[in-house]
């Protein structure tokens, strides 16, 4: 019998499948179908120190095997998260990751200081939101910026810290090394690729923000490559995501070096997909005599 548990930076996940930030709200929207406790964990919708309105609609568009979104970090603010959503989440028998975004170092540090006082299991630092000028993307695209945020936050909290990297860079492994050096406990790879779609009749971008983040199966090959590159560059665990929609994708991610996974867009297509992936991983492990996820992590044999 395969053991699906993974331990990332001291946090135990009952299985390696985590709902990706921004696609699962605060865990309350899918409980009609199955309890949150089925998932390894949930990364909550990105929170900022103050409440945020987000971008005007339309905020989403479909593309071949993918979607573009430009939500723009609409959220009720970190205090509402802590006071209103977190208590329920902590009772739901799954690992809870707070996802934090901000414009200034101070924003990030303050939000994490507040989280430090809670029982949240982990903090994911979004330094890569492509949809708001001040959503952190400016931090995430340079080693210096990424290092600065990590440093500021590392001082503010002892919570296990996961830094989420943007794929919109020339060399993602350099950024990963920079945040590792500043004390990140793990990295999540990848956030969305910046894309665009235009309505040829109105001649306007479909997204009111003009551009948005591409996710879904279309980006999987890019995500896998980046997970592979990052996993070879750093010693801290890598949480892989970007286009995972089936168990095979999950196994590829493990082999490339991911110790756990997040799934987002696939949930829109099929809300049960995380459970199917969990089952599929277990089946694959049983069929191949693999007892522990760790036996697969990073085991790709490059040519």
């Amino acid at each position: 019998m395969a053991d699906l548990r993974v331990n990332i930076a001291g946090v135990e996940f009952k299985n390696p499948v985590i709902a990706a930030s921004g696609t699962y709200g605060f865990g309350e929207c899918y409980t009609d179908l199955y309890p949150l406790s089925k998932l390894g964990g949930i990364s909550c919708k990105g929170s900022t120190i103050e409440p945020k309105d987000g971008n005007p609609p339309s905020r989403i568009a479909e593309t071949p095997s993918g979607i573009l979104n430009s939500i723009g970090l609409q959220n009720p603010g970190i205090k509402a998260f802590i006071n209103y959503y977190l208590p329920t989440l902590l009772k739901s028998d799954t690992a809870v990751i707070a996802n934090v975004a901000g414009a200034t170092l101070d924003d990030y540090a303050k939000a994490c200081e507040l989280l430090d006082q809670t029982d949240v299991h982990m903090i994911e630092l979004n330094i890569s939101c492509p949809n708001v000028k001040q959503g952190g993307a400016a931090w995430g695209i340079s080693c210096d910026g990424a290092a600065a945020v990590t440093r500021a936050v590392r001082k503010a909290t002892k919570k296990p810290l996961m830094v989420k990297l943007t794929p919109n860079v020339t060399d993602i492994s350099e950024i990963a090394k920079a945040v590792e050096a500043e004390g990140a406990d793990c990295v999540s790879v990848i956030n969305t690729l910046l894309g665009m779609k235009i309505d040829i009749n109105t001649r306007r971008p479909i997204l009111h923000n003009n551009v948005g983040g591409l996710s879904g199966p279309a980006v999987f090959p890019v995500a896998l490559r980046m997970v592979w590159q990052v996993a070879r560059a750093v010693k801290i665990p890598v949480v892989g995501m970007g286009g995972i929609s089936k168990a095979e994708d999950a196994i590829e991610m493990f082999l490339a070096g991911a110790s756990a996974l997040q799934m987002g867009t696939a949930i829109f297509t099929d809300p049960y997909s995380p459970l199917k992936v969990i089952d599929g991983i277990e089946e694959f492990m049983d069929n191949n005599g693999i007892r522990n996820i760790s036996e697969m992590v990073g085991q790709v044999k490059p040519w």
Partner: protein
Amino acid sequence: MYFCDKYRIVEKKAIASDIYSYIIKCPEVAGIVQSGQFVNISASGHTLRRPISVCDFDRENGLIRIVFEIRGEGTREISRLREGDYIDMIAPLGRGFSFLDDAKHVALIGGGIGVPPLLSIAKHYGEKAQAVLGFKSFDKVILANDFAEYGADVTICTDDGSSGFKGNVLPCFENVLNNEKLDIIYVCGPLPMIRAISEIAEQKAIPCQVSLEERMGCGVGACIACVCKVKRRDKEMFVRVCKDGPVFNSKEVIF
């Protein structure tokens, strides 16, 4: 409460040019669905589901009906399903219309593919309902008989006059307004139409419920993709069409 499953299409009909009506066997959904709620349908090969309003339902027989138009590749794919096939949907979703217990005269104003969600309102109000339904042209006219069968007084308009009155629904609606003291108005259709009717309702201080559309990600409230702007407690804010709507009180919507 909603479900996500595959349900059997027990009847498929092409009811107008590129417009289809499906009757779907889904007792658990039919048992709880409300007027104005919608279903979110998986279209093979597509990453996002397609939201379609529930047009009618039959709790006893466990059936719901949807009516949709082919607008792009997703709805085209859905239209390829055949009688007996299974349709993969999340349903029922959203907040539907609410009814006034003591209403005597209600108006249902629908434009194009905004007409279907109004049908189950007509069913509720029976002869109290006046339906003004606008379409592009005669070959797009749908559900006129269904409204009439439920007792509604139906007026048809077409942009080109090829069926009913020529022009949009506004003149006919003004007519209704002048003839009756309306207790409530329900509107669904293109945004300019919704906006125009809402303004009149506001002026005349008639309660008005509108059903809005927006591009959706999850359809269940998780992703905050599908927002519209409303004013609540004197504050403008984005709320979710899929969860906080699709039906809103017209007075709070900021168009």
